């Protein structure tokens, strides 16, 4: 079983209320000078070999389902 990771992050120009809340909490804890953006990580177990074809398939469904490319960017890491 091979692992492929898909990371999904809010686009830089899109407001990230969750990241903003975490940033605020860090400041209240005394951690100054940090700005956080919050995303999602998908761990995908692939049965069999991770071929270029399988990676293309993962990119395809990452774009269709895992990320909303109107507001998010994604990257596939194998």
């Amino acid at each position, binding site marked *: 079983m091979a692992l492929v990771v898909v990371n999904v992050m*809010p686009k830089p120009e899109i407001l990230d*209320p*969750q990241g903003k809340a975490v940033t605020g909490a860090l400041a209240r804890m005394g951690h100054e000078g940090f700005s956080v953006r919050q995303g999602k990580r998908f761990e995908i177990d692939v049965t069999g070999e991770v071929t270029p074809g399988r990676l293309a398939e993962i990119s395809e469904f990452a774009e269709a389902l895992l990320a909303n490319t*109107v*507001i998010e960017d994604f990257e596939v890491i194998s």
Partner: protein
Amino acid sequence: MKIGVVSFPGSLDDHDGLRAVRLMGGEAVSLWHGADDVHGVDAVILPGGFSYGDYLRCGAIARFSPVMEEVVRQANKGMPLLGICNGFQVLCEARLLPGALIRNEGQKFTSVTTPLRVESTSTVWTNAYAQGQEINIVLKNGEGNYQADAETVKQLEAEGRVVVRYLDNPNGSMNDIAGITNERGNVVGLMPHPEHNVDPTITTNLDGQGFFRSLESFLSSRV
């Protein structure tokens, strides 16, 4: 008028929607998310609440439900389609409407009656209102913050496709956008809940009735 209301797993306001349709003199048809036809209805409402737990993103999984395939097909042919709250999120995920709804600014769940201005009366769902009319409609959500890229927002504004706008923006939506329409004006999505402002036995505020009267007048003029 025969109006279908879809029930997704997690829908909260499907029965309020069906009830509103009946109150406004229509025939209400309950549509199941797993069904692959819409029983010949004249229009469809995607209700508020949640769908499939809203795992991933609000509306992201509902978009791929069997009933949505037929709903999208009919809407592309001109069938009136209204998405309320979670229904609006589903319409954006299905790319029937541009943009997306993200977490409210300040991460707060909002439950208020919110003042709105009707900005476009040239849609199937808002033709019974007066241009610029101010109405008050129930709003209750955690992810009602409308976002799109600057070019999209510019286009929506230029084409008069912002349907309702918040007078007192409660969630950080770009340009105070509460609801939008597609180019044809048959698909409308909005975060506020017109179906909660139609019944005189539970509220004196009946500002939501116009959505149903608009549909009725559209359907009767078409026949």
